[in-house]
Structures are given as structure tokens and as C-alpha cells.
């Protein structure tokens, strides 16, 4: 994937650049808002990582102008500002996700993967099918190999995210944000406890576990049958 990285802090830039290149992505790095604005309007990128505080033109301005010009490249905004209002402002400007520094690189990688290749809105599926599991989003039903599995609403939501991002990592923080709407860290690990119950329900009577745990990073649903 082609990634545009707009970051003036060398340490952060190095971390992101190296990490993404190792994962096989192509990274173009710029250091100012103006450069980001220019490049964004030119060759298309699959995703952009933009720091909120950039020299010349700040990150939120860049995203606002992109959106005004019809550039729909998904944007992950990086920032040292973790305040509630700052997050809202960043998303309102047009960013698709917002990550507070310092962050663990796997977190960034997982979120970027989630942003890339996002299907257009008209493509909203009503059914998801991965690894033998079928999920009906309208009826809120789950079946594995035809047999119905009864899930609690939160368990359903967790499974939905894993299936929507099948093959990609969903981090603990992403679960907390999407399934619970928490933008802070509740010290108790509710993700783990819910996910273990989800697992036992899905795997009851089956040999394989389609949900993979990546310690310290998150969870991933296998796409193979």
C-alpha cells in the first residue's frame, strides 16, 4: 500500500516509516502541511498518516482542505493532544481515525489496515461470512456451519468487528472504542473477558478456533475455512 506520512517529529517518523516498510508498504514522508496538501492532490495514496501539529499548515487544515477538494483518502491523525475536545475537532475536520502519541506501532498498523481498502458506504453488507461463520446483521443472528449460536449484544458486536476486519488485526483499544465507545483505558480487561466467552460459545462443538490472539496487540479472525 502507498502511505503518505506527514510528520515533523523525526523519532515518530522513523518508527512509523520503518515499521510500515517492514510490513511491505510504500511510505512517502513529508514534514510540512503545505507539502502534504500538494502531494495529496497529486498521486493517489491508499491511506495518509497526518500529524496534527505540522509547520506551515497544521494537520486539521490539511484534512479540511482535502475534503473540500473532494480528496477522500482515508486519514489517520496523530497527535500529542489527547483531550476530549481535540479528538472531536480532529474527526470533525474530516479525519477517519485519531491516535494519541505515544502509541505502540502495532496499534497504528492495525488501525491503518482497518482504514485501507474501506468499502464505499453504498457497499454496506447485510451479511458477513468468514471461516464458516455467517452473521446476519439485520436479524442479529450468527450461525457456524449452519448451527445457530446465541450471543449477547456485546459478544455479537465483538464478532462483527472481527469479521468486518477479517484477516486484519483489531486491537484492544479499537474494540474499546468501537464496541463500548470508550476513549480511555478502563484498567479492567473487559475485552479479554468478553472475548473469551465469545470464543467458548463459537467453538463449542467445533475443532478449530477462527479467532487468533496476538499477545500485546489484539485479535484477528482467520479468513481460511
Amino acid at each position: 500500500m502507498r502511505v503518505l506520512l506527514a510528520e515533523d517529529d523525526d523519532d515518530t517518523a522513523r518508527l512509523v516509516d520503518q515499521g510500515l516498510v517492514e510490513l511491505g508498504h510504500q511510505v512517502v514522508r513529508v514534514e510540512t502541511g503545505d507539502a502534504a496538501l500538494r502531494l495529496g492532490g497529486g498521486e493517489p495514496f491508499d491511506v495518509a498518516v497526518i500529524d496534527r501539529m505540522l509547520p506551515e499548515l497544521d494537520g486539521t487544515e490539511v484534512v479540511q482542505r482535502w475534503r473540500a477538494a473532494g480528496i477522500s483518502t482515508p486519514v489517520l491523525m496523530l497527535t500529542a493532544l489527547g483531550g476530549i475536545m481535540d479528538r472531536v475537532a480532529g474527526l470533525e475536520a474530516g479525519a477517519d481515525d485519531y491516535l494519541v502519541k505515544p502509541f505502540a506501532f502495532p496499534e497504528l498498523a492495525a488501525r491503518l489496515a482497518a482504514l485501507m481498502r474501506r468499502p464505499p458506504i453504498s457497499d454496506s453488507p447485510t451479511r458477513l461470512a468468514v471461516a464458516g461463520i455467517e452473521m446476519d446483521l439485520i436479524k442479529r443472528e450468527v450461525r457456524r456451519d449452519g448451527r445457530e449460536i446465541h450471543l449477547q449484544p456485546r459478544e455479537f458486536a465483538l464478532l462483527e468487528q472481527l469479521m468486518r476486519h477479517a484477516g486484519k488485526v483489531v486491537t484492544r483499544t479499537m474494540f474499546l472504542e468501537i464496541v463500548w465507545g470508550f476513549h480511555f483505558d478502563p484498567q479492567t480487561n473487559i475485552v479479554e473477558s468478553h472475548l473469551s466467552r465469545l470464543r467458548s460459545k463459537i467453538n463449542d462443538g467445533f475443532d478449530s478456533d477462527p479467532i487468533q490472539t496476538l499477545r500485546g496487540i489484539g485479535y484477528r479472525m482467520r479468513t481460511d475455512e
Partner: protein
Amino acid sequence: MLHRRKLTWRASAAYRIALIYATVYALTIAALGMAVYFAADAEISRQQDEGIRVEAVELSDEYRREGLAHLARSIDAREAGGGSNSFSYALFDARGKRIAGTLPIRPPTKGWHHIAVRDSDGASVPARLLSTDIAAGLRLAVALDNHAIEQVDRTILTLCLAAFAIAIIVGAVGALLLGGYLQRRLEAMVATAVEIAGGNIDRRVPLSPRGDEFDRLGGALNAMLDRIGLLLENLRQISSDVAHDLRTPLARLRVEIELAQNGAPDPVQRREALDRALHQSDELLRLFSAILRISEVEGGSLARSFVTIDVSALVEDLSESFAPAVTDGGRTLAQRVQPGLTIRGDRQLIAQALINLIDNAQRHTPVGTAIMLIADRATDGVELVVADDGPGVPEADRERVVRRFVRLEASRTRGGHGLGLNLVSAIAVAHGGRLIIGDNAPGLRATLWLPTES
């Protein structure tokens, strides 16, 4: 900048106000005096005119009864009367020839006139004259000098001027005294403020038992100073607490990094040391996030983003979310929620507050503890309670435990940074409510009281 010299007269508001008041008062007296003057003058003139008119009518009647000759003799007699009769007369025929009377005028036109006549000494005397036709071709003029009126006018004018002068003097003296008094009261406050600005934070403005406007101002200033003192004390405490509490994890972090650097060449051990170092720095970052969060919540600008929240649904949701994790830890989580309770606030923050309390309940109680989430109506608000039947908090510590970085001895080893309850308290206050740490008999009962109208 404040300085100790008192204000000059010109600059002083107190003196200016007092002088303005005194001047207005004096001018009012002057105005009243003028009014009296003119009123008296008008009344006396009226009376005088009436007297002249009556005299003319009398003479007219005499003519009608007794005839012209009698009238002429009557006029002469009145004029000769001297002191008791101060009128002057003149009677003219149709051709303007004088028939009687010594009033030294030429035949006047009909009606009222103001004239001036020369008296015996040759001085010009102002007089009032009425001229009527008592019969066809017979004109009578009756006049009275204004001597009386002039006397009254002079007297009144003198009295008014005297009153005005007295008013000015009394006003000036009063202004001086009043200005001095106001200055003294205000200077007392300025003096206190100067001392405080000079560094003596403990000084307070002296108050009188009267409770007047100055005392109210002084009281308000004192309250403000109390608050500032509290904030300063808070700041001092936090700075030392932060420094103290950060040293330990930072020191540990250093140790781990050093181990990784110098330790055995075993890559596994090195890896483990770096893992621990990373873990330590995450802990520190969490600590700072918590401090920033508390700062943000206490900053007070959040009320703008408040919306209506169904706290009953929130508590039920949290109960459902945390039950698995609590059970996995060997404890139980139950709920008792009155449905339909709402408040205005920030859902994230209320959730975080409750989660902090639940986390505390898990962290500081033994396995087997029962935790209960309660949402109930209370006076003017709602009560969200996290109660457990664990060891609880000793009564002496219940106030302390809400402050920053306070960790009770029993829980020093159990992790956490001692900011959890402080954040809960800050969130409660930001919503117009408060956090109450109480006894669950047995155990801890943490109550979040939130008003329905913030």
C-alpha cells in the same frame, strides 16, 4: 500598581462624589430660594393690585352716589390723610384736564400700568397704577408705590443668599468629612491587598460588624483569598507528590534499561528486561494521562458539551460489560437499577468514573467479594453507587483517599497510581455533584451523587 500614598483630592473618587453631592444640594437650595422669591413677589403684587382696585371701586361708588363735586372733595381728603393712606390719585375730564388729585401724571390710557413718579425729594419711585372710566369722559387713576414689595423682596433675597452660603459651607465641610471616611474604609482594604501582593498570603481584609457594602466587598475579597490560598496549597502538594511519586517508577525504569544494557548476553533475559522497561514506561504514561485528564475535567470547559444521559441504561450496560471480567477474577457483580434516571453530562466521563470505582472494588478486595452497582433516585438528583463487602476504608481515611496520589498502606502493593478516586471526584464536581466514600457495613460504599439540573 498599588502604592501606599493616599490619593490626592483631585484624583479621589470619594471626595469627588461628596463634593458633587454637596454642590447639587446647594444648587437645590438656591433654586428653592428663587422659587420662594418669585412666589412671594407675585402674591404681594396680587394683593396690592387688589387693594388698588377696591379703592377705585369705592371712589366710583362715591361718584355715583354723591356726584362729581363730592368725589373731588373725597379725593383731596384721602390725599391729605397722610400716613394711613399711601394711595395717590388723579381725576381727568374728557378733554384731559385735571379735576382732582395730585398724582403727577398725564392722563393715562385705561388699564393697569407700571409707572415711576418723582417724590418730594426728587427721587424716582416705582408705582402701580389703575386707570378706569368711572363715567363717560371721567377718567380716574389710582396709584400705589411698590415700597412694600421692594422691602419684602430684599428681605427674601438676603435670606436666600444666606441660606445658599451656609449650604455651601456645610456642604464643603460635609464633603471633606465624608470623603475622608470613605477613603479610610477603602484604604484599609488597599493596605491589606498591598501586603498580600508583597507576599503575605495569610492576611485578610478586616471587617466591621455592620455588614455594609464595604464589609461585603471585604468579605468577597477574603473568600477569594481563601480560595487562592487553597489552590496554592493544592499546587504545592501536587508538585511535591508528583515529584515523589514519579521518582519510583522512573527509577525502576532506569534499572530495567540498565539491566538490558549490561546484563547477561542472553537475548531472552535482555528481551524480558526491555519488556519490563516498556511496561514501566506505559505505567508512567498512564499516570500522566490520568493527571492530564483530571486537569481537563477540573478546567471546567466541559459543561458546554453536556447532553442528556440515561444513567440507568449506562449502569446496566456497565454491569453487563464488567460482569464477565469480575467473575473471571473470582468476584461477583450484581446490579439494582431504577429505570429511567437521566442527568445532563458527558457519558464518557460518567462511564469512566463508574469504571474507576468498579476497578477499585476489584483491585482492593479479596477473592469472593460481592460488588453491587446501584442506580437510584435521590433528592434533586441521582445516586450511582458502587458498593462491595470487602475490607472497606477506615473512617479516618475516607476524606484523604479522594485526594491525589493518596494510597492507603494496605493497597500500596496492589498497583494503581492513587489518582483513580481523585478523577472520579473531579468528574463528579464537573457535573455539579460529589463523590461520597462511605461505609457499606461491611465494606466500601462509593456514591456518586449527580444533580438532575446542573
